[in-house]
């Protein structure tokens, strides 16, 4: 499957032409966790996402790829309403999570973000101790009441994030003192400490070295059994390695979405093929 990235010749198939902007591939999955229908996002007058329709399945890793500036982060941030923090950002369309449109005025973003967690491009641990980094969110949500509850959640989260062995002796030390890869795993541990349904990851490895990247990728594979993960990545290899489904964005349009194997070996759209064969990036 990875070979396809290195070969320049792909067998001739009937491809959708470059100028077709309609989403191609399999948008629907049998048992979706989140359902997005006709999502449009605007920054002021400028439209950053156009008519994106896609399902995100349970316990799957959906990777989003595409040239930079195509709107991957913008779309990802719609899924837990992180775009609310941007003043001129406006979202249209339906994003259904657990039967409700998350942009419905009656929806409270606080519990939403507890259920749809996020890991950012640059590791951003709180400038507090490792322990506090994990325990803070469960505390504010009232998930833990006693010290022992908190201890337990800190341990299980760190174990799940594969960081426990490395930090168990220095939980009281600053989270910002860890290496970049450890910080990112700390951020993942922080996200899973509130037991979310979905974890959004925006290029979580772009600031990391290959070894740290490999660890995170292994971690994503393990987390998949408990969580639904949507990951933005600029690395096609990474998308191929970690995801079951892949969505290809181009200039605000969702061009193609389908099983990762299919997208990388038998792309249906000319743009997808151009992109995965490295004709532009």
């Amino acid at each position: 499957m990875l070979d396809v990235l290195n070969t320049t010749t792909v067998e001739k198939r009937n491809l959708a032409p470059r100028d077709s902007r309609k989403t191609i591939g399999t948008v629907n999955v049998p048992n979706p966790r989140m359902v997005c229908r006709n999502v449009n996002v605007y920054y002021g007058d400028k439209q950053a996402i156009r008519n994106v329709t896609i399902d995100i399945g349970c316990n799957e890793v959906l990777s989003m790829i595409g040239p930079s500036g195509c709107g991957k982060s913008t779309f990802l941030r719609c899924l837990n309403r992180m775009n609310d923090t941007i003043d001129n950002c406006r979202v249209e369309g339906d994003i259904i999570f657990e039967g409700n449109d998350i942009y419905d005025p009656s929806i409270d973003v606080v519990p939403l973000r507890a259920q749809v967690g996020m890991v950012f491009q640059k590791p951003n641990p709180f400038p507090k101790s490792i322990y506090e980094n994990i325990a803070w969110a469960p505390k504010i949500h009232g998930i833990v009441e006693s010290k022992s509850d908190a201890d337990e959640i800190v341990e299980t989260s760190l174990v799940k994030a594969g960081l426990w062995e490395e930090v168990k002796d220095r939980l009281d030390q600053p989270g910002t003192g860890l290496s970049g890869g450890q910080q990112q795993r700390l951020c993942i541990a922080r996200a899973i400490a509130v037991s979310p349904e979905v974890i959004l990851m925006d290029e979580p490895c772009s600031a990391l070295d290959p070894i740290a990247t490999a660890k995170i990728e292994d971690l994503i594979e393990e987390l998949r059994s408990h969580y639904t993960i949507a990951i933005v990545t600029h690395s096609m290899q990474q998308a191929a390695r970690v995801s079951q489904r892949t969505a290809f964005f181009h200039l605000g349009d969702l061009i193609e979405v389908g099983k990762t194997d299919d997208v990388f070996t038998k792309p249906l759209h000319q743009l997808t093929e151009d992109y995965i064969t490295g004709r532009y990036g």
Partner: protein
Amino acid sequence: MNNSSTKNGSRNAGRTIDIVNKGLKRRYRKEKRFRLYGILSIAASAAFLAFLLTSIVMNGYSAFLQTCIRLDVPIEAGMIDESNPKRSDFQGIIKSAIREYYPDVTERREKRELYSLFSSGAAYQLRNNVLDNPPEAGATLSLWVLADDDVDMLMKGHMKRDVPESERRLNDRQLRWIEKLENDDRIEKRFNTTFFTSGDSREPELAGIWGAVRGSFYTMLVTLALSFPIGIAAAVYLEEFAPKNLATDFIEVNINNLAAVPSIVFGLLGLAVFLNFFGMPRSTPLVGGIVLMLMTLPTIIIASRAALKAVPPSIREAALGVGSSKLQVVSSHVLPLALPGMLTGTIIGMAQALGETAPLLMIGMVAFIVDIPGGFTDPAAVMPVQIYLWADSPERAFVEKTSAAIMVLLGFLIAMNALAVVMRKKFERRW
């Protein structure tokens, strides 16, 4: 271009480095010149500062010493009122002690001149002494009593002895009496505790800074208690919660304007609103503190907003991303990080307020107040106003008091700024 560089790569590179080398000297000269300007301007400001400080210290250090005269006070039976010692004629006792020391002074006018060498505070010194440990009749108390400010000036060399009699405030007779004291080792300059323990006085030797220090303290307390919470709350609201619209833009512009409003305007406002409209007591730390609070608020708000802006947005995103409310983000993560900057801004604002005179003149804190204020609603002076009042007094002895008071004020300012540095160091998180 591309072609030639590959063909003549080495020659081309040589040329480039030649060009670089040619310009190098000029670049270094420019840098040197710039550094020189920098050093010159720092040297100039340091020189001015040094000049200012030396002149203040040279003028003022002598105020920390005060000329005193040792007076033997014989206590005879009947001098002290047994039933109520407080009501004894201490002035009379001092005078008789002085007469005893100068037995040959008998004429009325001469006696008055003689008494005037001693401060009117001498009687209070005796009184305190007697009340603290009542002497037995027949005993002789040996007291260091304050000399009059003219004597003090003479001893400190501010008054020349060898000029014609008409040009000095002490006549030849008085100089001879002082010489007698000097010959008997009964006159010397001692540490001036009065200056640090009493309030203002018409008599320079009795005037002290303590009343003004207390007044400043109460005033600053009011200012701090009001401006810190209000300033921080306003800054946090404007920076973290307020929608960005015309109204908040308008408020922002006005806060910046307020920071530039001449301070006397705040005094006028205080006069109109707090004194005339609300009828609050004149000349008090309460009103002074409120007026200074108005003046300090813009400084604190601007500094606090800058501190909040400096908190990396990634921290806010991280906290929001795990589903915290805005208030939780602010109170758990943003405020702790912004606190050092906020404290620095507050202390700078307080230091400004501590040195402020003009607005306080408008609300009557320029009055001559002898009593040491005991609370927020007692009439009080503050240090800069005290300096202003003394600088305005005709007596030569107030010149050194003025400088000494400036030194005390500078001491407080330096202490506050040092505190700002310490606080910043303490609260700053280096992780």
